[in-house]
């Protein structure tokens, strides 16, 4: 990375490397990085082609039994969490760390001494000119505005600019490590779950899916005070708003309206508006008695056993209806009740006149709840990577050597990247010097 890299250092290569050393070299090689990245890319493609995280039945409807067995065995139904994919990411993290260390150890140790090349070397550089006038330090510095003098000796000076760009790659690679670490922290110390709340309902647990679905206590409770959905005139959804209270112990801490794009945040836990739905309740008149039943709620009265099992908003354009299961002389049977049809909203079951008098739909809100302590590590990684890309590609490192020669200076310039632009800059510099000394 130094501008004085004119002669590559001859490395005394040992005639034979031990097995361990060659493994180490391979792990830190760019070849290994390319293999890993290619594998990660291929694995990711598989994950977008094969349906992820579906049930067994769905796979069997798409693939043959033997294909499904291969898919399940290789974890292709959940590529991004399969052991081999995580192993690839882990190996990539190791490779990236070793590659970066190998490349940056010299710079980090700072063991490159800055020296002024000798006259012959400088005259041999593609960009150099002579000034036949002793201008003095003040004018020299003024001419090289924006440059920093990093070496000053009797024989001359070394100026440089854009030294930050040397650290671009280091910053980018470290940031990728940060993002991977952040992701890992989230995987280990975070969780993700779901909570369904009806208006007025309070819950302090969330349902966590995955291989062993369970209820997880949150440490605080959420009460849904209100839920509203609004639509645009064309029927597209406009806004979902859950008005919730956060309750800790017996105390209401605060109230917030959760919207899509505006989650609630409390004690490192985020609560998002994820979905909503309707649950119907059915008002029956059974032998003169008013009964309210939810879906799958059993009602018993003497010989009568019945349960609403399926709700349809519109049955063959006859309006809303519900399928009710009941026991007919001990035999299970079903019947449809249609709310708006005179003849179909009443039936005699086991001697009781049963009439459907109303269907009320209540909205519920689906909240996604997650905790990710790694998030700020990831955000930091993102910010640094962008800064690193900027300094790596848009700032370029260049040095200007000024050697005192009898009656003037020998000036030479070197740029690591963007040589074309530097050439223009150097020509302009030469012009300025010519203007002064003539």
């Amino acid at each position: 990375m130094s501008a004085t890299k004119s002669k590559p250092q001859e490395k005394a290569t040992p005639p034979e490397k031990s097995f361990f050393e060659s493994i180490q070299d391979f792990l830190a090689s760019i070849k290994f990085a390319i293999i890993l990245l290619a594998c990660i890319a291929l694995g990711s493609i598989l994950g977008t082609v094969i349906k992820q995280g579906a049930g067994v039945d769905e796979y069997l409807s798409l693939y043959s039994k033997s294909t499904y067995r291969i898919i399940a065995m290789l974890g292709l139904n959940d590529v991004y969490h399969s052991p081999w994919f995580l192993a690839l990411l882990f190996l990539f993290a190791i490779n990236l760390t070793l590659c970066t260390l190998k490349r940056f150890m010299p710079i980090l140790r700072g063991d490159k001494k800055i020296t002024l090349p000798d006259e012959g070397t400088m005259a041999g550089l593609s960009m150099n000119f002579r000034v036949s006038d002793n201008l003095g330090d003040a004018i020299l510095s003024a001419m090289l505005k924006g440059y920093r003098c990093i070496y000053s000796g009797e024989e001359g000076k070394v100026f440089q600019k854009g030294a930050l760009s040397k650290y671009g790659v280091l910053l980018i690679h470290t940031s990728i490590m940060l993002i991977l670490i952040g992701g890992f922290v989230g995987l280990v110390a975070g969780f993700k779950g779901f909570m369904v709340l009806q208006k007025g309902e309070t819950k302090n647990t969330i349902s966590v899916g995955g291989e062993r679905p369970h209820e997880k206590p949150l440490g605080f409770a959420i009460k849904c005070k209100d839920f509203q959905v609004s639509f645009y005139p064309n029927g597209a959804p406009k806004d979902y708003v859950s008005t919730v209270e956060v309750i800790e112990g017996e105390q209401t801490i605060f109230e917030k309206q959760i919207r899509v794009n505006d989650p609630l945040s409390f004690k490192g836990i985020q609560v998002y508006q994820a979905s909503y739905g309707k649950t119907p309740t059915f008002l029956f008149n059974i032998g003169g008695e008013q009964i309210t039943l939810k879906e799958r709620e059993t009602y018993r009265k003497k010989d009568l056993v019945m349960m609403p099992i399926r709700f349809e908003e519109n049955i063959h354009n006859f309006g809303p209806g519900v399928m009710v299961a009941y026991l007919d002389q001990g035999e299970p049977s079903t019947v449809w009740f249609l709310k708006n049809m005179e003849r179909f909203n009443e039936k005699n079951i086991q001697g009781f006149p049963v009439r459907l008098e109303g269907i009320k739909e209540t909205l519920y809100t689906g909240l996604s709840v997650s905790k990710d302590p790694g998030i700020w590590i990831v955000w930091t990684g993102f910010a640094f990577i962008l800064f690193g890309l900027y300094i790596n590609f848009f700032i370029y490192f260049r040095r200007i050597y000024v050697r005192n020669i009898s009656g003037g200076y020998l000036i030479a310039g070197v740029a690591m990247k963007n040589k074309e632009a530097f050439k223009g800059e150097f020509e302009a510099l030469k012009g300025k010097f010519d203007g002064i000394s003539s």
Partner: protein
Amino acid sequence: MAFHHKILGIVTLLYLCLFLIHIIYFAAKKEKIKSVIWFVLYGTLVLHTVGLILRWVESYQLGIGHAPLSNFYESLIFYSWCLSLILVLMKKRLNYPAITVFGTLISLLLMGYASISPSIDRNIQPLVPALQSNWLHIHVFTCFIAYASFVVSFTCGLLYMFTWKGVVPPRETLDDINYRSVIVGFPMLSAGIFTGAVWAHYAWGSYWSWDPKETWSLITWIIYALFLHARLVRGWKGKKIAILSVVGFASVIFTYFGVNFILSGLHSYAT
């Protein structure tokens, strides 16, 4: 038909004109025609900008005001706008009609597809809740500027395979422009992925869900990362780099179109 549709219709015709002027240049090879190309391209970009702003203004008049970045139609016309913007910004280097002809042809195809295809809804639609965020602007802008830069890279890669004296620029120049467009596109793609991730965190509750669009943008990112490493670390030049830029653009196309049509996922606003 809303007023902005008329403006964008004229813009489409101008892209067609630009393409024809390029053809005339290749036949006549008069230097003067080059300046005509740039003059018309500037004019087209200005009118295209006016068209986009009018669509934005009209959305406010409909009471559903939002930037024209929300559905497939809007993404197509925005992509072609970004492409012209990149051509104009890189004018100093792209003073080769062999390169700009591809830019204008792709703009023409995008605009034409957007205005002709029967499956595309060209009306201004209201924003669904998931898109109601300020991250929308920066996310879409960075992604499409990246996509547009990769068009330039792809063009250079493709032209590298051919020689036509006086029309196709020298190979070193193509190689250089290819690299320069990737160092614009790659940071922009990175920014696009990151802004998308931050937005996803606030909207969907997870900054990375391996949604097909996310996954394919990562694959594209990996390909261009390989491009940069091959060039900067291994010193690849010429044909190998040209092939990589063509492969990279194939991945861009799949990320943009393929994912929408073939794979389903969270990014389904765009179909």
